[in-house]
């Protein structure tokens, strides 16, 4: 069962795993996850729906949240986002 996984890894680091989810879930969960974090906190985001990546990039561009790292391996995306 596709399950959203949101974890507080301590020291301002969070993990959001929305692999298996399609639009619009990854972008909505990312927005909600960032809203629960404090400025400066980092989110490790894992997803596998390519079009969500385009929307999340635009979303961060608007909010000012910074995408520090973008990794991609066999259809899976792992991004690090820092809340502004």
């Amino acid at each position: 069962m596709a399950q959203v996984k949101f974890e507080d890894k301590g020291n301002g680091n969070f993990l959001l795993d929305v692999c298996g989810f399609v639009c619009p879930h990854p972008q909505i969960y990312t927005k909600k996850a960032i809203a629960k974090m404090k400025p400066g906190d980092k989110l490790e985001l894992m997803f596998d729906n390519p079009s969500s990546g385009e929307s999340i990039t635009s979303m961060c561009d608007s909010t000012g949240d910074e995408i520090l790292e973008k990794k991609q391996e066999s259809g899976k995306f792992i991004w690090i986002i820092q809340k502004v």
Partner: protein
Amino acid sequence: METVDTTEKRNQIWAFLITGILILISILYYKVNVYYIYLIVYIWFGFAYGIMLQYGRFCFASAFRDLFAVGVPRMFVGIMIAMIAFSLVSVFLAATKMETFHPGPLGIHETIGGIIFGVGMVLAGGCASGTLYKCGEGNGTSMLAAIAICFSQAIFVNVGGWFDKFLTGYVWKQPTLTVANTKMISENFSGAARFFVGDALINTIIPSIVLFIAVYILWPRKGFLKKRMKEKSGKKSFGDEIAGIWAMITQSKRTSIAGIIIGITAGIHILAMRGMQLKFHVNNFGQLLTRMGHVADVSSRGTVFDPGYWYITSQEAQLGAWVLEKFGIDMRKNIFFGVNNGLPAPWRNPALWMSIGIIFGAMAMALLNKEFKFKIPKGELIVWGLLGGTLMGIGARLALGCNIGAFFIRIAGGDPGGWVFGAGMIVGAFIGVKFFNWWTARKMAEAVEDF
């Protein structure tokens, strides 16, 4: 690193293989009968759409959904750009009588269909065309949605005779019009100017720009100006607003670029189909199927569904009906299949080949970009895919088209009905987002319980 290289190479081989299969199919069809060039043209335009949709992550569902859900206008921008580009090419086509576009009956059914379709596309995670390109990415939820679109439409137009009454008693009594053909425009303008002013300028470009500015004011403007004022000193000027609009256009370059190319391609597609019709002296592929002896494929009028331009849902309804017919259900005693669109075998269905081309094109592109991943739908996604697809199918039949046939093509072709459908689609997307916001908030609350 070697594993990555191997995967990359394997993906490339698959992409070439897919393209090769389509080339082989094209050659085989041509060998069987030269009339199949008509069908081959559909295949390759479908392939081109698939490539561009996947490259631009071009999904009409996200245009309004992402605005309401996460405040992202990138896909809205892409669609407006595509429609403007397509409308300009359509002016040339209409002026040279190479247009295959027919306006749809104008009425409230378009808005009602649009609302149902809009809710469905948010639930399914993609519009009708988006669902197809996502199938090409290996997205199982989209595959379920596509199957649901096929069967929901086929059943909807066949059960109880209701749809026939809807067509004869209401839809066919509604006016059809393009702005260029209204009295005001046709009396004051002639030649290409008539189509430019009526169909492109009044029906497409001006409303698109007005919507564009409205979206800019409602969404990115505040954040953009705040950021810009921090960086520069002095007062806010008109130049800052222009910079803000430009930033909105260029926020996702790949979507905006895809928008321009899709718009132009949709126009060239019409030109190519009209060229095929002139070459074989026909107005519909059904005439060619009849000439080849496939009389069971065509409707009582001797036609099959052959829009002559980009279209998605009707051919999916035909596929659904063809399958149901194999189970012994009579699918021809209705206007939709029996009189209008026929029920060709899937391998002789021109528009269905366009849809297959879209899936293959998107698959090739996703493979080359290492974005292909087969995802089996699980849990709630099965429900969203099937429910969303069913709603899209019903909405598309009520409105006589989807986000492409009832919205994109109609608006650029000068039919105000495209906006009537679009208004419904926006309302539907809003309702869908409201529901998902509530749903995801619940799921998120469960996920953070352990914090």
